[in-house]
């Protein structure tokens, strides 16, 4: 269970990947991941290919990130989520706040 962050050379793109069950035990790592040197133009993507599940604490962490980075609704992409994760996003209507693909 860990969090990885990758920033492209020209700071155009930040990809944060989350491995395992996404919950508050990742609070600090997750904060560190998005507190890197991103500009207003940096595209932010959360890659959930290795995320097994997500819960309400993690949803709160996502909202905190959005607020911290001052992104509009839909300004952050979430990609590769599995069915269970996708269902939680659907139930909580997170597609109104994040660009879930």
């Amino acid at each position, binding site marked *: 269970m860990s969090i990885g962050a990758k920033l492209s*050379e020209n700071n*155009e793109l930040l990809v944060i990947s989350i491995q395992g069950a996404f919950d508050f035990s990742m609070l600090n790592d997750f904060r560190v991941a998005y507190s890197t040197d991103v500009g207003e133009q940096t595209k932010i993507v959360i890659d959930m290919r290795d995320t097994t599940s997500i819960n*309400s604490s993690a*949803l*709160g962490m996502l909202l*905190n990130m959005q607020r911290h980075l001052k992104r509009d609704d839909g300004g952050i992409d979430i990609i*590769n989520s599995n*069915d269970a994760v996708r269902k939680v996003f659907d*139930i*909580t209507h997170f597609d109104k706040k994040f660009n879930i693909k």
Partner: protein
Amino acid sequence: MKVVKILVVDDLPTNRKLLRQILLKISGFTVIEAKDGREAISLFNSENPDLILMDINMPGMGGHESTSEIKKISGDTYIPIIFVTALSAESALSDSLSSGGDDFVSKPFDADVLKSKINAHLRIRELNNQLSLKNDELKRMNNNLVREQELIEHFFNSTLKQSFLDKSLIDFHMSSMSTFNGDVFLVARSPKGGLYVVMGDFTGHGLTAAMGTIPVAMIFFKMVAANSAIKDIARELNDQLYTLMPVSMFFAATLLELNAQGSILTTWMGGMPECYLVGENGVLKDTIQSKHMPLGILRDSSFDSATEIHNVINNDKLYLYSDGVIEASRPDGEMFGSERLKHVITSSNNNRIEKVIREVNEFCGTTEQSDDITLVELSCVEIPRIDEVEDAGWDNKHTLPWVISISLSSDDMRNTDPVSELSEIIGSFPVFQKHKGIIEVLLYEIYFNALDYSILGLGDFEKNTEEEFEAYYALREKKLKDLADASIKFDLTYSSTLGYEQVVICIKDNGCGYQGHEVDMSNSSLHGRGLDIVNSICDKVVFSDKGRMLEVTYKI
């Protein structure tokens, strides 16, 4: 020593007797006799002699006719036929040779000359036999080789044909110096929609170089099917090739993933020439350089699987190529080079692959191709989805009912992760396999609700900002550390009667009870979302005992 069998053909018994006497003085010979040409042919067939001494003039079939016939029968096997003649030397020689004979001896015989001639021809026969054995062996080996090559080709074709080569995404050219190719180019789609490419070049050419493509293809397709990340594929390929290949062999490769939306490119490059990202109107947007050693050189502990990411937009095109393209040489030795390649790519708008190959061929002129050449264009667009495959699920299978009870003490709450352990147990029942993720969420939310709000009494604390969030969890940790005499009990009951399959989860605690369950949770504040999720997932959600007990029903 093998006994040499000599056939003596003469119509006069005295001549045959004379020859027999001479021959028997030479050790190792046995003698058989024929009285004319016809009998000679029949004895040749039945006795398989090693050498024939042939009289020329005999009643019935003569020596010349008989010789032609025997030579015809023996085919490629050398059977020496020496004419025994009283005729003058020159005409005897020319007649004997024209009828297929190999030599002649004149009467009267000189025993030593006869012996020398016989031995000389037997040596030729021996050499001839060895040669034809070798020939047979060569023929057999060649047949085996051809057959093996066909089989190997089958392996390659069936490994490589799994590639997903959609014309809207991929254009490519691949030419090899021999049937088998050291260049590898594979494309696959992951279940989550990403497009994966591996393009690379094994050291060497031909079959030895191509050997490595099979493990590469097998690992690649399998890992893509599991939605693996590029860094993990790179690591696995490196580790396997490091184990499999001789030290002198390695695999220079570019691995990449284009996400389903065609907006993010993730690359790992080891030992490959730079590749080009080209935007609209041929603008060179980015040159991506190789940052690593080729695969199969470093042991796993020293291997660096770090990938790079690149932001791409609709219709950006990426060009990958093997060094054969830029190292193609013209007669004076000058190479095509990356500048020429870049120029061709950026100075046109379509059919760039075709144009590059044409330029390379024109450049090389009459020079023979000295390396495998592969050139690939990847269009960064949305990837067509894989058609969903119906699961042969457990939907109609009856399974046994069960009950699981778990009681947690304060220590358990501090030190264990009951949610993931319980999810593992439930997920191991086949009927729950597809629901494991959702069950885990459900268990997490009701456990969190009982622990944080009823047991730890944290229900009044706000979690609206990052700071409050952190403070909340700091406080939670502290309270958890000091916790004593707490108890949470899970009862899970699975039943599958009347076509209904459901699990009822009951969670009881000895805390102060959850007070917030009547609060409106439809607003978008950060807390309360947990029970929102529970409400949406479950058919029935019932609190009792002043919020100390919660029973939820999840239908499958």
